[in-house]
């Protein structure tokens, strides 16, 4: 029989017949292994993402084979590619349509900082319009790097306290981006 690695249990107290841990960690465990990503692919980083979703790299191993093409059902916004200034408000609107809790990953140099397109028409990093949790460098990044960034997101999701989204810090972060 081949050996499969299962998801490790969170820290807790176990004895024959029961296992006790905090609610935060149980919810985190469930969430982090069933993230529904919304791919917002505008250029070559999107092609790398297609490889990431494909059989070789298989993002499904991380519980994310189900892409959500509606922001309303998505947990993770994956922005891959150059975002023009004209696209900025659209990205902002898509972020607003996502339900809490939501995370954002900026894949590649363009989404992170504008990349080589230091020019009048290109948004100099998506963090000018939406808050970003993880930045993946590269031009474009290899699927391994995207997966690495995705695992960083999983780490954030798994360890997030349930009250974080109600905290005044988080509210003020959203207010900074004009999101109510």
């Amino acid at each position, binding site marked *: 029989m081949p050996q499969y690695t299962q998801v490790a249990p969170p820290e807790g107290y176990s004895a024959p017949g029961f296992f006790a841990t905090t609610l935060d960690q149980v919810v985190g465990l469930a969430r982090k292994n069933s993230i529904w990503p919304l791919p917002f692919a505008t250029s070559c980083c999107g092609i790398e993402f297609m490889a990431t979703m494909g059989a070789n790299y298989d993002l499904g191993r991380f519980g994310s084979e189900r892409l959500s093409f509606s922001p309303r059902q998505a947990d993770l916004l994956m922005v891959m590619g150059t975002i023009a*200034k*004209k696209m*900025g408000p659209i990205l902002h609107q898509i972020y607003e349509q996502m339900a809490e809790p939501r995370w954002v990953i900026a894949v590649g140099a363009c989404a992170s*900082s*504008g990349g080589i397109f*230091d*020019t*009048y*028409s*290109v948004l*100099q*990093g998506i963090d*000018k319009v939406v808050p970003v949790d993880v930045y993946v460098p590269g031009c474009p990044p290899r699927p391994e790097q995207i997966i690495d960034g995705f695992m960083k997101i999983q780490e954030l999701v798994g360890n997030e306290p349930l009250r974080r989204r109600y905290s005044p810090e988080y509210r003020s972060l959203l207010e900074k981006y004009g999101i109510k």
Partner: protein
Amino acid sequence: MDNNSMIDSLRGKYTTELFSIDESSDILTITVNKSCIKELVRWLKDEIGFGFLTDLCGIHIPGQTLELGVVYHLHNLPENKRIRIKTFTTKDNPKMSSITEIFSSANWMERETFDFYGIKFVGHPNLIRILNVEYLDYFPMRKEYPLEDATRSDKDDRFFGR
């Protein structure tokens, strides 16, 4: 109509408005006063057969008295002849007659030229920005603005030899 007879009829029609004629490059190129551009394009289309507007674009040459220009490329499809018309205007009063009445395809091209160079086409039905964001407060292709975006915050001048 070959180049020579074309030049002759142009010289006969326009005396003062025709600034220069250049045959050295691939396409017959003429530079004209902006006052006659609409009439000239209409004449070329209706009388000579240049029925296709290949391109219309702007140009900015800093240091010239007439800094801003518009370049028209026309194509005579039956004879497979092309002509390039250049016309210039000042930066302070960048007005140009619109040729949308003659070529409908000039509509978007003139909007694009306005968007990037700020040339105002008089008589255009809807002269607003077409490619750039509406709130852009300058004309990015004019050679008087820095190439780089001013909102960039992660570039350290030391690493770029400045």
